[in-house]
């Protein structure tokens, strides 16, 4: 956590939604907006079912990139508090892999800031994911984009 109370981190343990909501609570924050990205179930044409995703990151660089994005979002919108978390390690189907929460005076600012942060995080951060399939096979997806 930095001096403004922002929490920008990679986590190897499950993301705590309630703790994130509490962390962005602010007397000036009339709106709290959150984006949660989760592992989506998937079945391939050959019948393989997705069990989960395995995330790997160049942690020092990814966290620095995430902090830069937080700074950029703060320049664009009047953000009171901000939480940006991304999982590393195994994330089962249905479990959250990324959490972005911001408190702002009004809702439009919060929606826009969340949209900006998740779009930029996915296209820029040095985080890779591997699909783990029920038959024991796995596939690297590369830079996190979708």
């Amino acid at each position: 956590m930095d001096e403004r109370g922002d929490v920008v981190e990679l986590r190897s343990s499950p993301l705590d939604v309630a703790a994130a909501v509490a962390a962005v609570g602010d007397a000036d924050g009339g709106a709290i907006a959150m984006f949660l990205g989760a592992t989506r179930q998937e079945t391939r044409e050959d019948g393989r079912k997705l069990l989960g995703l395995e995330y790997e990151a160049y942690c020092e660089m990814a966290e620095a990139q995430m902090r830069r994005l937080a700074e950029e979002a703060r320049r664009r919108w009047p953000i009171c508090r901000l939480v940006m978390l991304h999982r590393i390690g195994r994330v089962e189907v249905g479990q959250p892999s990324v959490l972005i929460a911001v408190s702002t005076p009004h809702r439009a600012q919060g929606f826009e800031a969340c949209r900006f942060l998740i779009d930029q995080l996915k296209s820029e951060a040095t985080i890779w994911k591997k699909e783990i399939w029920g038959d024991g096979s796995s596939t690297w997806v590369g830079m996190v984009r979708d």
Partner: protein
Amino acid sequence: MKVRLRMFAILRERSGVSEMELELAEGATVADAIEEVGKRFASVSACCHGLQLL
């Protein structure tokens, strides 16, 4: 010059190493480093080909 190289994801898995040191000529570029890695690990040369340089 000595360059410390870190490998992630598919490159780490295929090469079996997460970190290595390369000895490159002065003035060498990132593309030179990638070419060297491709020579050293046949298993990653296909991936190195389409590698995105940031």
